[in-house]
């Protein structure tokens, strides 16, 4: 098998792994917004392209921040999700919505493979992709109809395209288009020019030439242009709507997030949140391999090692400032993962080759070292899914160790799916669902929850109207327990869903 075919096979396997894994993952609160928005966007584009009547741009893409059209996020992934839902009848509805993110994760695997193969070798490339595919949190996020994993892919696509475009080509359009796609996925892509800019200056300084000015022009012209073309909301008022988009994220509300035993909901946050969270959410063996690999990445063409380092730094750097919202944890700095996995692949392969003399050959050494590394990651994946937001690596002591340390238990209400079978056993009646409320109707629609258990509403009124009540365990959600105790007159749940023994959802029944 040629290296190219190996890469394609790994990319397809990665995408399939995501599709397979997401089948057990509950519906995230944010996904419900993107499902609806994606359907609207897809209908608008399809109708516009076929010259049929269609809703106005303002109705489809606009409105206030936080409104149904979701103008606070650019449209690319939502559009892809809507088209997938429209055009993939063979998949379940939920899988269809999530398919674009899964495919993009496969693309990420391919890009990691391609760059690593080009710079280091086949063994390094295979190991890097396997490390990436078997990151439990990344696998989880890639299975959601959300922007975080796709952003990682398109961020890295931009980095790779930029690096390839340093070959002196006359029309380096690829880097501008890739960045435009990244911008059309999530605002965090705006950080990328800091990495590329510094790298560009370094190589210009080293060579004493400004050979690659076309790359900068491509980024400056094509990036914004692609964003503009893909986002009809900008067509109406480019500056005003851009300003509103960025202002929303610059002044984003700070959601509650537990870190080392403290509930954080306002800056200043500890400077080490991103570092410690990364240490605890990447398999330990992968971290060790990456640490070894980081020492072996110098001296490559166009300072590729420096580029990967800068890319990771631009992604995670803002979270060291103490003022950037931390509520999304590792999902907000996912673009550090491709460089980290490349370093892990390089480190593991280098270590194996150094030890080849002791095991009668390089191949055997690669199988032993690489196999151990992959086995460790695979074990963590098995431990993590489908409640990967509760999972932490062995370095933290797994989910129970992280609970001891006071690390965030979960967010988005995803785990509510795990109590649906218990609810189905109960007599019909309204359910107080709090954080799972946005997903509740979708669970019914997708056939995961039988009819007769509607959402009872919000807060005290919702509890008063309920026959069953669930609490999704996060520190700041403790208050839901207390409201239920007061209304039901009991502190005893009838079921407690656990991940690795750690409570994630309690279900109460009105006596």
């Amino acid at each position, binding site marked *: 098998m040629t290296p190219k075919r190996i890469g394609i096979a790994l990319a397809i396997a990665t995408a399939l792994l995501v599709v397979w894994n997401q089948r057990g993952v509950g519906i995230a609160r944010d996904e419900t917004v993107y499902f609806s928005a994606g359907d609207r966007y897809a209908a608008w584009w399809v109708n516009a392209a076929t010259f049929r009547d269609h809703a106005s741009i303002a109705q489809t893409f606009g409105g206030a921040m936080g409104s149904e059209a979701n103008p606070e996020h650019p449209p690319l992934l939502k559009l892809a999700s809507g088209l997938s839902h429209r055009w993939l009848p063979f998949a379940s509805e939920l899988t269809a919505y999530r398919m674009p993110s899964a495919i993009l994760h496969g693309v990420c695997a391919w890009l990691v493979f391609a760059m690593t193969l080009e710079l280091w070798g086949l063994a390094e490339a295979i190991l890097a992709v396997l490390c990436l595919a078997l990151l439990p949190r990344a696998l989880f996020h890639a299975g959601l109809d959300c922007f975080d994993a796709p952003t990682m892919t398109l961020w890295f696509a931009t980095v790779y395209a930029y690096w390839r475009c340093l070959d002196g080509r006359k029309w380096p359009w690829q880097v501008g288009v890739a960045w435009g796609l990244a911008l059309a996925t999530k605002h965090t892509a705006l950080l990328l020019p800091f990495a590329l800019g510094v790298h560009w200056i370094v190589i210009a300084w080293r060579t004493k030439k400004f050979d690659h000015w076309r790359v900068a022009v491509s980024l400056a012209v094509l990036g914004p242009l692609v964003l503009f073309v893909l986002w009809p909301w900008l067509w109406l008022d480019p500056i005003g709507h851009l300003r509103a988009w960025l202002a929303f994220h610059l002044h984003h509300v700070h959601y509650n997030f537990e870190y080392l035993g403290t509930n954080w909901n306002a800056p200043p946050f500890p400077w080490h949140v991103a570092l410690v969270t990364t240490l605890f959410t990447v398999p330990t063996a992968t971290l060790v391999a990456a640490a070894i690999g980081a020492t072996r990445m110098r001296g490559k063409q166009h300072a590729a090692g420096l580029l990967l380092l800068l890319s990771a730094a631009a992604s995670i750097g803002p979270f060291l400032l103490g003022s950037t919202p931390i509520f999304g944890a590792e999902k907000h700095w996912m673009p550090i993962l491709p460089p980290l996995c490349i370093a892990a692949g390089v480190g593991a392969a280098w270590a194996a080759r150094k030890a080849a003399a002791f095991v009668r050959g390089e191949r055997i050494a690669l199988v032993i070292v690489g196999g151990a590394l992959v086995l460790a990651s695979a*074990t963590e994946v098995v431990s993590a899914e489908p409640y990967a937001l509760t999972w932490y690596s062995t370095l933290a002591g797994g989910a129970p160790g992280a609970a001891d340390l006071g690390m965030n238990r979960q967010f988005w209400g995803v785990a509510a799916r795990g109590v649906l079978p218990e609810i189905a056993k109960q007599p019909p009646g309204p359910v107080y669902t709090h954080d799972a409320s946005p997903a509740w109707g979708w669970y019914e629609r997708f056939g995961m929850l039988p009819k007769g258990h509607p959402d009872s509403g919000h807060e005290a009124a919702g509890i008063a109207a309920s026959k069953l009540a669930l609490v999704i365990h996060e520190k700041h959600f*403790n208050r839901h327990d207390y409201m239920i105790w007061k209304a039901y007159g009991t502190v005893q749940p009838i079921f407690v869903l656990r991940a690795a*023994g750690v409570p994630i959802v309690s279900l109460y029944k009105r006596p």
Partner: protein
Amino acid sequence: MTKSLAAVPALLLVIVSLWEVVAARCDATGVPDDAAWDAAAALVRASAQPGDLIVFAPDWIDPVGRLHLGDKISVDMASRMDAARYARIWELSIRGARAPETAGLSPVLALDVEGVIVRRFERAPAIVISDVGSQLATATSDGARPTLELAEVGFAPHRCVQVTPVPGKPTRVTFHQLHLGTKLVGYAGLADVFTRRDIRAPGKLAVEIGGRTVASITPGIDDGWVHFEATTQPGDADVTFVASADAPQRQICFAAEARQ
């Protein structure tokens, strides 16, 4: 020697990987399951007396503890001011954790039930002569009427008297002719995580007996359930709690007991 050192990175990587394989499975399966909790709960049920306090440690296992023994824990017990009035405390713990309610106490019973450690503690309880929560109906206020709530204060449940003073205008809540012992023990804090997030200013609570301030605390957004205590003369006296704040929506929630 140099040749041997060349294998160190690979060896390190293999050892860490194998450790992770084993440790990850141990982490994922190391927390006692329902069978263990059933057995531990049965032990407690066999010997528990009405009014015994049951606590769990670490705090994150509390839902599992209540799943198995919640019928033995009343809402009032779960939302207690503190544990001082309880003569017997059952502590069910895992992973070597201890509940704060048993700090400094020695168990009279300690058994390992399939990984759940069951301990029983006995001690002379505080004798409560009166508490403000039960006297709220006869209390008077010069501002908004205080309410008895089951509130989240410091992410824990507390049955407490809640007052939301107008900024700059203290609210005085007076408990008339409250039976007092040798000390008045209380706690206060700011209820509701969302108002604590959105408004960062502290609240203030002062306690006056016979017109004299005997205790004063300033609970902030991260202070949780703040303890106060004052020496008192046994007998009846008017006790006034003065809640004040410079910012709006300071939901000051307090509880206090007169103890012998």
